[in-house]
């Protein structure tokens, strides 16, 4: 008697779980476009897909993460129509695949406006974030400790920064970790000893953007490829695309698609 009561109590949450699983799996109809790849590109493609599907409800676009390399692999085996990558392809890869830059992503290195420093080199930046340089005096600033501010492990900006600047060196454990571009900026705004990196779209006069390797973080410099802290967002394909995939591809490169990316803080394709 008592046991049966326990069972009936358990059934409700279990059934609910199943119902959720079923609804999650039942969205595949028709010829859909599969896009797999970089988890940094994923949120942007999801946004693009969302507005694309709003205008073309008959289409079906399915976006997954997994990493740039996994995306290439999925394109190679035909599991994905389009792969996304947040790094340039290697020489061997570009022989197998066709790729197109759909947008550029730039990081600005920011300090407090009271900081006399106006430029930094990639190597200095690396030493600052790995903890080798710990005082602003070494870089020609005032005598005060440097407080680097980084992002949480897994964030696109952090991955971006690590691959463009750190060259395999770990980011110092002493670095303060914030969970958004906005929080980094807020901290740099208030702390004359802080240095952080934020997405280009977040730049404002409340913080000072440093020249990196003598180049300013401007849209123009990023499009020309002069600014070091830039990475491309690529769409990668192999052979002929299906008509559905081609339509989505063209939408992303269209003015409307590019405007969406720009609004989200990316730089238009050059």
């Amino acid at each position, binding site marked *: 008697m008592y046991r049966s*009561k326990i069972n009936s109590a*358990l059934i409700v949450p279990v059934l609910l779980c199943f119902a959720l699983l079923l609804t999650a799996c039942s969205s595949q109809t028709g010829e859909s476009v599969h896009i797999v790849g970089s988890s940094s590109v994923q949120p942007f493609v999801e946004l693009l897909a969302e507005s694309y599907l709003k205008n073309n409800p008959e289409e079906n676009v399915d976006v997954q993460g997994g990493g740039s390399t996994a995306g290439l692999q999925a394109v190679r085996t035909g599991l994905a129509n389009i792969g996304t990558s947040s790094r340039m392809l290697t020489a061997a890869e570009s022989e197998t695949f066709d790729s197109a830059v759909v947008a550029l992503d730039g990081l600005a290195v920011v300090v407090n406006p009271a900081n006399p420093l106006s430029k930094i080199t990639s190597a200095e930046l690396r030493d600052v974030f790995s903890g080798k340089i710990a005082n602003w005096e070494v870089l020609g600033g005032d005598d005060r400790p440097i407080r680097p501010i980084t992002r*949480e492990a*897994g964030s696109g900006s952090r991955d971006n920064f690590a691959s463009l600047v750190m060259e395999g060196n770990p980011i110092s*454990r002493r670095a303060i970790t914030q*969970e958004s571009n906005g929080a980094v900026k*807020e901290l740099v705004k*208030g702390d004359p*000893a802080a240095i952080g990196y934020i997405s280009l779209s977040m730049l404002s006069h409340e913080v000072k953007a440093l020249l990196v390797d003598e180049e300013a973080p401007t849209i123009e410099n990023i499009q020309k490829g002069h600014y070091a802290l830039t990475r491309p967002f690529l769409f990668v394909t192999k052979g002929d695309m299906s008509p559905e995939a081609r339509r989505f591809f063209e939408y992303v490169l269209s003015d409307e698609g590019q405007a969406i990316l720009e609004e989200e803080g990316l730089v238009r394709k050059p």
Partner: protein
Amino acid sequence: MRQEKLIALILQAVALSALAGLLLITVFIFKEGLPLILRTGLKDFFFSSDWEPDAGHFGIMSMIIGSLAVTLGAMLIGGTLGLGMAIVLTQFCPPKLASFLKPTIELLAGIPSVVYGFMGVVTLVPLIRSYLGGPGLSVLAASIVLGIMVLPTVTSISIDALKAVPRTYWEGSVALGATRWQTTHMLMLKAARSGIVAAIILGMGRALGETMAVIMVAGNALEIPGSVLDPVRTLTSNIALEMGYASGEHREALFAAGVTLFAVIMIFNTIALTFARRTIRQGRGQ
């Protein structure tokens, strides 16, 4: 009669489903987290500060120390203030004022933690940074914010404990010529001791589990803090910071951090319950 039975059955089912929820959560956390702890090895998991999920290093010592440091700081601040508040409200305060002050303090529990965090970031952190030094985001900032957040818990449970002391104790003491303060610290606090300990331990559980406010004011650096002005990362904030992106072993490691928290909070609650029961038994013994 049949209707009554049916209602009883439904109520039982509802009560048990709450329990089933707890059971599901427990089983799930342990199933996800425990294998990684065993694979990494107890020593490398609990006694290493090497947290580099990408490189497969999952040492959570600095975060355990961070959690404990912040909780201890919160209890030094919130425990002292809360207990003081409870003493004033039960022993030294006109009943009318007390009936206004107590709900006001309890109102603090209703403020969302993100509001506490935000207040900490915009007011407390800059103050600490300019007057005490360091980045401002620190053990101290987190302790103060958490100390205020645990105030309602500590205060209201301590008040209940002090009120549960039989009136005759108090009357006896005053009749013997003891002053109010002598009565309070020599008698009331001792008689209510176990309830007060329970209040403090429940407050600790709250401080240990708080996440949002801590992420905002603690700085989340992975280094073991050398002073109260250094930034610190707690177990909860680490889980919340990295959960969004984690997959595979990294995700398991976050669950393993959850297992650790779960165990610590269970220990706290068990101790608190034991003390609370002891109070009741003592009360009944009279």
